């Protein structure tokens, strides 16, 4: 993270009620919203969205079948591992590390996409290191 250079404290107005007139970017293609710049940004958004959807689908694949399984295949949830029913293991214990790992994996993917994009723009300057 940005630990070595603590960011300067900035006074921030609660909400900038006016939509910003000028886009934040200036200079490069991206900033000037040229056709190329727009395509670059669309590529970035698509890549990020694809990464997010991949993880969301994975999370769905893990969690979505469970209520149906528990309701319609009772033997599954009632089977015991070390004396504790499977349903308790899955929902009471394993769900949390699973969510954590998915979140961490997404963070890595998202940051890699941003690094690649930043490198593509020119200078290999990294927000996250």
């Amino acid at each position: 993270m940005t630990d070595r250079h603590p960011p300067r404290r900035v006074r921030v107005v609660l909400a900038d009620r006016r939509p910003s007139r000028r886009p934040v970017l200036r200079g490069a293609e991206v900033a000037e919203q040229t056709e190329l710049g727009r395509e670059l940004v669309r590529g970035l958004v698509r890549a990020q969205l694809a990464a997010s959807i991949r993880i969301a689908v994975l999370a769905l694949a893990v969690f979505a079948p469970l209520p149906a399984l528990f309701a319609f295949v009772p033997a599954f949830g009632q089977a015991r591992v070390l004396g504790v029913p499977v349903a308790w293991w899955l929902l009471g214990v394993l769900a949390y590390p699973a969510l954590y790992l998915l979140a961490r994996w997404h963070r890595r993917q998202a940051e890699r996409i941003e690094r690649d994009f930043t490198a593509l723009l020119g200078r290999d300057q990294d927000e996250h290191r």
Partner: protein
Amino acid sequence: MTPDGSTLSLVAIALVVLLTGVIGAYGVRFARTTNDFLVASRTVRPAWNAAAISGEYLSAASFLGVAGLIAGYGPDALWYPVGFTAGYLALQLFVAAPLRRSGAYTVPDFAEIRWGSKRLRALSTGLVLIIAWVYMVPLLHGAGLLLQKVTGLPRWVGVTVVAVVVTLNVVAGGMRSITLVQAMQYWFKLVAISLPVLIGLAVTRPGVTDLFTGDWADAGRGLGGGESAAEIYSLMLATFLGTMGLPHVLVRFYTNVDGGSARATTVRVIALLGVFYVFPTLAGVLMHQAMPPPAPGQADTLLLGMPVQVVGGVLGAVLAALVAAGAIAAFLSTSSGLVVAAAGVLSTDVLRGRVRDFRTSAVVAGLVPLLIALPTTSADISRVVGMAFAVAASTFCPLLVLGIWWRGLTTAGAFAGLIVGGGVSLGALVVRVVPGIPTGSLESPVGQPAVVSVPASFVTMVVVSLLTRSSVTPRVDAMLAQLHLPSAARRIGAGH
């Protein structure tokens, strides 16, 4: 509860309330400008911010309610804590970093920045207030029950005490004093629930097989509301997607340094919540085994009696006081977050955004839920809190997700979707709360409306946006660039 035990609990509760007041008063000395007052500085580190978000998020619904639900309903109740945690995964995947980069402090800000529409902003403001109040009313009810259980005082005392303390504290300190306090709140709540549970387990030493016996231990029986699977799926939708629309959660994300650290914060929040929820789960299991089943409407206070009944003696009384202190801390912290969020939108959108306006707004934001909570009751606070999640999932979730990722979401589409999603979910809430309205075959969707209202909202937004396609302006591309460009890439643009 023994008299001396309840005295101890009352002292613990009074201490927490007093401490909250002192810290609030102390914090105000540092808050000089409106900016300090509302958003601290925008340089809160992920480690602190994650603890603060978790501290604020873990309401009494998680502290008392989840344990009570698990003791009553068994493994199906585990979907509440799992959903409360999974909500942060969805928040991270689709909202956290882009929302932070948008510079929006609240959803109304986002609505105006993204679409430049005053009407959309006003509608979002109304929804923020509704969600905050729907969330806060059951918390106040819980506080009333807590004080009644510990002291025998009538219910309205606890309801009023929490509402007044929270309001005064927010009026005095704003958010500045809260970041630190909320972070410590997480650790305090963790100790206050883990210690009694672990000691309770150590004292009773139950065999593993004794803990999971009978029908109770089997999943798939539902939460007492008809079809189990349908009910659970609706609950999953509400909690998985509702977290991203909760006003007190979003406000905290604004204090991240940048989009990347918003993600880092979310990952940590999931870890902290995962650690915390182990203990309400264990508490539920232990209470089911060692205590008689709760009377209807008493599940929320079951945990308060656990230490005295299971551990007993002086240690039991001390642990009971610890649980009571943790519970009141939980009521205060989440309610504070909700009042800050509601007061924030009231002061900028209805008033003129000065410190004085914020204070006026805080009073309104705290009094409205108090007035609603006094004449009403709610059993199982977690389930009523679930309704706030359902409203958020049916309104702000589609607005944020589609608004961030789809350039084609038009003002009209967003507006229509908010009306439909908000209308259906709030309609279900009203039907459920007001007695005498027949629900017939709609019993299940009324109790858990998300399965209907969330898809309805998404579909409405998409269809109406496609119909009003021509109103998408080229400005949207610049807007999306701002949401998705990492700050490193922006610096390159700026330095050119």
